[in-house]
């Protein structure tokens, strides 16, 4: 059952990811990215991380993608939807770079000495309680620093939005 679900989610994620980078309309790109994010959330559930999956859907599909769609609508990018592709050298370079990157990843995986199946660990391990326990004891300082980061991001966004240009 789990392998079938894995291949289903993987196929959806890869297909919609490719559709995202080839579609010329940014709104469809955003919608395909949401589909990819949902597929990845499904994989998180398969990997025994329900809290991460829920936060993933709430934060990414719920908040970040709404922000993306809002900005796309706000900017009225109709004139931007025409085919825009980089010219010869940059296109060749991008294909070479991504090909080398992917070849490296595959070679690295094939070079592994052992390839054990995923351990069937403790089923409680992905729960909200466990993550909260760890987050508020061992990772308390990084957690507090994220609050400062978010505050500075809010202030920066507000200043950028209120900026008088020229």
């Amino acid at each position, binding site marked *: 059952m789990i392998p079938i679900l894995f291949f289903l989610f993987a196929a959806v994620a890869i297909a919609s990811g490719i559709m995202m980078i080839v579609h010329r309309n940014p709104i469809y790109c955003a919608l395909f990215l949401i589909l990819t994010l949902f597929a990845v959330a499904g994989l998180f559930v398969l990997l025994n991380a329900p809290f991460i999956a829920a936060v993933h859907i709430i934060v990414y599909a719920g908040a970040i993608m709404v922000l993306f769609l809002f900005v796309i609508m706000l900017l009225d990018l109709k004139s931007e939807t025409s085919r825009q592709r980089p010219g010869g050298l940059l296109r060749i370079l*991008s294909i070479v770079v991504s090909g080398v990157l992917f070849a490296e990843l595959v070679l690295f995986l094939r070079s592994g000495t052992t390839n054990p199946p995923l351990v069937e660990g403790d089923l409680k391990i992905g729960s909200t309680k466990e993550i909260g326990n760890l987050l508020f004891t061992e990772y308390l300082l990084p957690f507090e620093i*994220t609050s400062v980061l978010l505050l500075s991001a809010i202030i920066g966004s507000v200043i950028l939005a209120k900026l008088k240009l020229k």
Partner: protein
Amino acid sequence: MPISYYLLLSGILFTIGVVGVLTRRNAIVIFMSIELMLNAVNLTLVAFSKQFNALDGQIFVFFVMVVAAAEVAVGLALIVAIFRLKETVSIDKINILKW
């Protein structure tokens, strides 16, 4: 299910994100590709978290999400500011930092 399946999927998604960043000219779509790369890394972290039966990977995913949210807020504010200045989000026409 060996962990290499998840790592391979994560590599494919990361490569798709790299191709998007390198080939698209629209700044917003480039941002989305960066989100895709962050997601690929999150998948790796959760897979290793399960493999080693330790929660630290999932905590890192949490922090990656926080940083991604902050980055998107500031980045989209920048894109809106640039659009107000230059009337475009195509990175070929945004060359104000060019030497």
